[in-house]
C-alpha cells in the first residue's frame, strides 16, 4: 500500500532563510509524488510533481524537491523563505500503473510552515 509520512507537523523559519519540509514515502510500485500547498480559505494548489522523468523537480514560487529512491524521500526545499510562503504543505503519493497514475491521491498529514519577519 502507498503512504507518505511528513516528518514535521510544524516548521518555523525566518524570512530569507532556507526552507526544508521533509517527506518519506512508501510504495510497492513506481510512485508519482507531489507537493501541494493550502493557504487559509483557499483551495489546494499543486507546487510540483515527480513522475520519474528527473529526480530533481522544480516547481512554482521557487520550490523544488528531490526524489531519492534509496532513502524513499521526497523533501521540499526553497533557498529563501518569503512571508507569503506561510501555509500548510502536503506531500502526496499516487500509484502509477500501465495506464498512468491513478485518480486517487494519498495525502500526508501536512506540515504547517510559519515565516517570521
Amino acid at each position: 500500500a502507498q503512504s507518505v509520512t511528513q516528518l514535521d507537523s510544524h516548521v518555523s523559519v525566518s524570512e530569507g532563510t532556507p526552507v526544508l519540509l521533509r517527506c518519506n514515502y512508501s510504495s510497492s510500485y513506481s510512485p508519482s509524488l507531489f507537493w501541494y500547498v493550502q493557504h487559509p480559505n483557499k483551495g489546494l494548489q499543486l507546487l510540483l510533481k515527480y513522475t520519474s522523468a528527473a529526480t530533481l523537480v522544480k516547481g512554482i514560487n521557487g520550490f523544488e524537491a528531490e526524489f531519492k529512491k534509496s532513502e524513499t524521500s521526497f523533501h521540499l526545499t526553497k533557498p529563501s523563505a518569503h512571508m507569503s510562503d506561510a501555509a500548510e504543505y502536503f506531500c502526496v503519493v499516487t500509484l502509477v500503473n500501465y495506464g498512468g497514475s491513478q485518480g486517487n491521491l494519498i495525502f500526508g498529514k501536512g506540515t504547517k510552515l510559519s515565516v517570521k519577519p
Partner: protein
Amino acid sequence: DAGVTQSPTHLIKTRGQHVTLRCSPISGHKSVSWYQQVLGQGPQFIFQYYEKEERGRGNFPDRFSARQFPNYSSELNVNALLLGDSALYLCASSPGWQGEKLFFGSGTQLSVL
C-alpha cells in the same frame, strides 16, 4: 476561466440529517473527485467519477454516495450525519481520470451539531 466551484461554502446540520454538496468542474474536465479533510489532517479520498461512472472509492461507509451528471458536475450525498462527518469537503476536477492534473475547489465546510 472559472475554476472548480463548490456550493455551499458553509453548512450547518444536526446529527441524523442528510446533506448534499455540489461541485462544478473546470470547463472541459470530465473527472471529478471528492475528498474529506478533517481539521488538522490531510485530505482523504472519498470518490472519483469519470464520464459519469464511478472510477474509485475510498474507505468510507455506505452513508456516503455521489453521482456525476451529463454536464460533468457532481453531487456528494451524506446520509444519517454523525458528529465525525464535520469536515472540509473538497472537490477536484481533472481533464482525464489520472491524478496528475487535479484542480481543487475551495471546499464546503460542513459542521454537524
